């Protein structure tokens, strides 16, 4: 259980202002919940670059390898077939299958990795800072344990000044 200081906003720009000002006094938000992606706040949250893209590449390469191996072994060695008099191991034939398997492996592998890393499994209960965070409310969540000592009052004031309609706490 952690206690979060929550600032709730109606407008994305106010979120940006509040985050920028809080950074000056050393308060960093744990996360921001927004109904739509706000790329411009990512530098303010110190979000590290995702490594998911690297896994996507690895899965894709794995798919390519699988396709090439399967075609070569099955189509080339185990069960060669004469289709329209074409060579049994033609390079153009490789391309669509290799492409499909690359996409299949990369897409499914990436999505599954994302779900596992984020610990989303079937039946998992959603953690909502505010019930309306998926509708029209922007929520800044600050981990109270990670705040510099005595900065809570300042953070509350900054969020209120920036335009928060309410600043509360919630245990999650």
């Amino acid at each position, binding site marked *: 259980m952690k206690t979060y200081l929550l600032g709730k906003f109606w407008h994305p*720009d106010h979120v940006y202002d509040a985050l920028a000002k809080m950074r000056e006094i050393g308060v960093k938000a744990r996360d921001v919940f927004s109904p739509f992606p706000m790329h411009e706040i990512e530098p303010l949250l110190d979000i590290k670059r995702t490594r998911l893209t690297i896994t996507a590449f690895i899965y894709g390469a794995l798919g390519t390898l699988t396709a090439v191996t399967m075609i070569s072994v099955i189509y080339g060695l185990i069960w060669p077939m004469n289709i329209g*008099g074409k060579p049994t191991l033609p390079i153009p034939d490789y391309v669509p299958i290799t492409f499909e398997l690359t996409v299949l492996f990369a897409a499914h592998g990436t999505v599954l990795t994302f779900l596992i890393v984020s610990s989303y499994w079937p039946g998992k209960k959603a953690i909502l800072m505010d019930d309306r965070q998926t509708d029209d409310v922007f929520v800044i969540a600050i981990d109270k344990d990670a705040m510099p000592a005595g900065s809570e009052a300042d953070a509350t004031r900054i969020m209120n000044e920036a335009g928060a309609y309410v600043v509360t706490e919630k245990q999650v």
Partner: protein
Amino acid sequence: MAHGKHFTQEELTERLVIPQKIRRTIYGAIGLGLVLLIFGLLTAKAPSGHVDHDTHDTHSALVDNSSLHKTGGQDHDQHEDKEHGHDDHGEHAEEAHGGGHGHGPQHTITKYTSFFANFLLNNLYFLTLAMGAMFFVAVHQIGNSGWHTAIKRVPEAFTMWLPVAIVGLAVVAIFGNQLYDWLAVPEGADALIDKKRAYLNLTGWVIRGIIFLGGWYLAARVLRRFSLREDELGGVSFFKKSNGVAAGFIVFFGFTYVLFSIDWVKSLEPHWFSTMFGVYFFAGTMATVSAVMGLFVHFLRRLGYMAYVNDAHVHDLFKYAFGFSIFWGYIFIAQYLLIWYSNLPEETMYYDTRFEYYHFWFGLKITLCFIVPFLGFMTRNAKRIPKMFVPIGILMICGHWVDLFLMIMPGSVGEHWHFGLTEIGMFVTFAGLFALVVLTVMSKANMVARNHPYLEESVHHSTGAV
């Protein structure tokens, strides 16, 4: 928006002054190119001898000739009744290559043919840049795109190359019978070309050329004028009017660009059919123009202009280059597989010529147009760090040249292709002229569309930290 730097009207008002150093470099490039070109022309030799087409099976080729022969043989029986009537029915494997005229052009090849083919190539190269930029402007206009506004003047300036391209293509048209089989071969000599003369005839070709190029230039001119008037008067009325023009242009462009590529490029090999040629031409166009625009914006920022353009804009341009080069690869293999899978031996001659006489170029084309941008632009940083995107972008520019080289040369000069001072010199001359025209056009107007309704959104454009 609250975040990011705010730009005042003064900061958004800037004129390009071409630095003397750049101007001298461009003039130097044009001069050097012309010298190379003339030297290359003086030392050019007429192509030697006629290559016996029946002996070519010894060449290494990606397609296994012997198995192709089998396919060709089987299919030949089925196709015989509707074959083109000019088949060489000898015992040799000629039918495997799709009809007796599979190899090389039928017109006389002199030492100037290669020059005209090269001239056509360079005209088309820079025309594709202009038209790709025009499509870019139009599609972002009707897509209500916000991010591109800050760099909008760059593609707009590219489109103003069109008049030069029109003059160049007019010159090509005058000497058309040096290049195009269907212009050079007299009626009755080739049954298949005769069947296509309803479409491929000089009058129709010229009229279509005038309509296509004229229509494109008109649209480019109108969009440019609206954009410049908007700078002076402001408001959203010009934006709304541009929407209509851009939408009309896209419909017109969709049909005419395909027909244009058939008229000027595909008809170099009038025996060959491909339903994918237009989109293949378009894919190459868009990949290259995105890379060129990215490099151009980077170049202008290096000169100290466009402070309001950030890395995200460059990132997005190279994203386009990345995406469209994958699209190019997709279309390339699709065009190939349509012929490969559906057993159309009479169409294989298009690739057979390329495998035999151009195998080095063929591999180079796939490497530069697909493999290099695909692997090179895959990571985020490659699209943002000049040390990465400048070399990859330049390789893509070379790749498009090779792509056009492979589209044009086999049909116009056959196996007598030539790569040397003439080719390099002509490209350098054209590139210098293109840079000069684009920079001059850019210096005639404000560097950014300063009253564009989406400008504010554009200067705060961000692709995020990840």
